[in-house]
């Protein structure tokens, strides 16, 4: 697939994301060892890594598709499926776990009809994600609403906050 085709399939008219991705790769001088950094840039731009994007990155950096796919699937941070409009990230680090993060996760998932197999609601509004540890142990249990870290919430409060998004 050429870059033009990619631009057509992954984006609407006037989408500058592909250009920005190319610029990000140029900044790394198309070095194959910058693969991780480039995948980060791509995910920031698109929200997830589609097959088209992965193919394009592989060609540009001259890395075989098998390796691009291998790296993209190895790391938890990368998502090959679109995420919800909002993300509720529940930290399940030790400190949060000891202080009841499990109950928070259970409550939010139950409320939205999600599970460990299904992370995003059918309408694509909300994703519930588990984090290994966000390093906010001092205010455990920690929940990240999009990019805002909030500590010490009860399960009901987290559910209420997520409800605000779905309304």
């Amino acid at each position, binding site marked *: 697939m050429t870059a033009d085709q990619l631009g057509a399939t992954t984006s609407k008219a006037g989408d500058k994301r592909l250009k920005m991705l190319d610029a990000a790769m140029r900044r790394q001088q198309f070095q*194959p060892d910058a693969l991780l950094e480039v995948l980060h840039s791509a995910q920031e731009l698109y929200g997830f890594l589609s097959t088209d994007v992965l193919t394009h990155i592989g060609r540009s950096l001259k890395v075989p598709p098998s390796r691009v796919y291998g790296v993209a699937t*190895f790391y938890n941070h990368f998502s090959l499926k679109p995420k919800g409009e909002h993300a509720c990230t529940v930290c399940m680090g030790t*400190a949060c776990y000891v202080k009841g993060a499990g109950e928070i996760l259970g409550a939010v998932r139950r409320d939205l009809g999600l599970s460990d197999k299904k992370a995003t609601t059918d309408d694509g509004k909300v994703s519930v994600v588990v984090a290994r*540890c966000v390093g*906010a*142990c*001092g*205010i455990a249990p920690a929940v990240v609403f999009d990019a805002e870290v909030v500590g010490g919430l009860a399960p009901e409060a987290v559910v209420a906050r997520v409800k605000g998004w779905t309304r």
Partner: protein
Amino acid sequence: MNAESLEQIAQRRQAARDGMKCRVSVCSGLGCESVGGESVLEKIRARMRLQGLADQSEVHLTGCRGLCQRGPIVEVEWGAAAQKQRHLYLDVDEATADRIALSHAATGKAPDDLPSHADNPFFTKQTKIVLANAGEIDPEDIESCIAAGAYSGLEKAITEMKPADVIAEITKSGLRGRGGAGYPTGLKWSTVAKAAGPKKYVVCNGDEGDPGAFMDRSVLEGDPHEVLEGMALAAYAVGAEQGYVYVRAEYPLAIKRLRAAIKQAEKLNLLGTHIFDSAFNFRVDVRTGAGAFVCGEETALIASVEGARGTPRPRPPYPAVSGLWGKPTLINNVETLANVAAIVRKGGDWFASIGTEKSKGTKVFALAGKIKNTGLIEIPMGMTLREIIYDIGGGIPDGKKFKAAQTGGPSGGCIPAQYLDLPVDYESLQQVGTIMGSGGLIVMDEASCMVDVAKFFIEFCREESCGKCIPCRAGTVQIHGILDRIARGLGGIEDLEKLEDLADLLRNTSLCGLGQTAPNPVVSTIRYFRDEYLAHVVDHKCPAGVCTMEGAAAVAPLAAVNG
């Protein structure tokens, strides 16, 4: 160096600060940030402007003050240059912030009803080297860091010391790796220095994957120049010209601050080429992790920096001989490197005077779990666990009883109540079956079930196993399966023996540290809380009431028939 020398910058900034009527620092740690630290800062700034003190006051963010539970934390320094007074405020909300600012601006005093918390044992019992600059500097302003001494160690090394002298000083200090294993830093440095080849690398391991630990995050966010200076000193000592800081993607603020710090340092020619007009060149790049615990292991980290899947490889060859792109590579943890500049500045003897015979200096711990004062602390090696938990930590909340402290995360073990008077150093912790680890210290009370805790950690290792070697990939699944069965009330006494056998197998045959240490939490909880395991597998009851034990009803009558 530019026209203005390091010393001139420091003097200019210090003089400016001395001339200020009032300086306010607001903690920017994640704990304070999440309860409105930023808006507190804005409020104080606005009030100072209103009072016409915008030019005579400095209001800035600073690194984590540690007491996350009581944030936002604000410190005010005021008075004439020679007799500055300080006042530490906890739990500051926007209204209080306004009151504090108004009081200091109008009367030059603290509000009468708000006592200073500087004499709180949480603060007075600590000894700070790595975290010493919290409250003094603005991590986003390199000049304020220089005023506090940043890069003066590097200047001293480059202008007055040979690389071998720097290594000798580090060796004399007795500094050991703060990532967990405690390998002597001086020895590691001299191995890399001796390695042949013109091209070498320095890598800072900031892949703080241990769940329940946030020391490295706080250091990188609160004092990025301290780490960069440590890296530059390491590079000078071993003969490297390129460095990488590997930071996990979960720490966006640390990455942002590091990138900004590198730019500022390059601008002042403290990083880059011909540093301090010498022949020494050093460049640092940030590499972002992507959520893989195994990347904390050094060979996996190298693979990840090279842009590949983060899987470990057998050692030897050690990275000191063959690391990044096959070149000699020095890998040190964030906290280790953060100690280096102070050692070069003040000397190895000074550092060696702190701590115990074999464990020198201080250790930063992330205090969390069932404890009153959660947060970040730095203590001299050899302090007892009791002092940490009861004097600094304030004890266990809700009148509950202490049950165990867990150190070392998924690679560590627990310390039961009978060892509360154990001095915290590398050897003592090892003797009781745990490790220093990177510094996570999770306190558990009687409401925690140790089988559940062991299951939590092994589940973590199962998920994070990279899958390259079979003992770890399959073994963690098996151990988790057995513990899950026990937690559902379906375990038998023979399961304990199976667990111990499996633990032995993983420990001896796994490829890297992840698999070798994965069974530690299980072994350690069986060792100290065998009764609790027996209650699960014989009586089919969970004493703490955490495990579901839903299968127990089905097992009990069967056992009665068989019995």
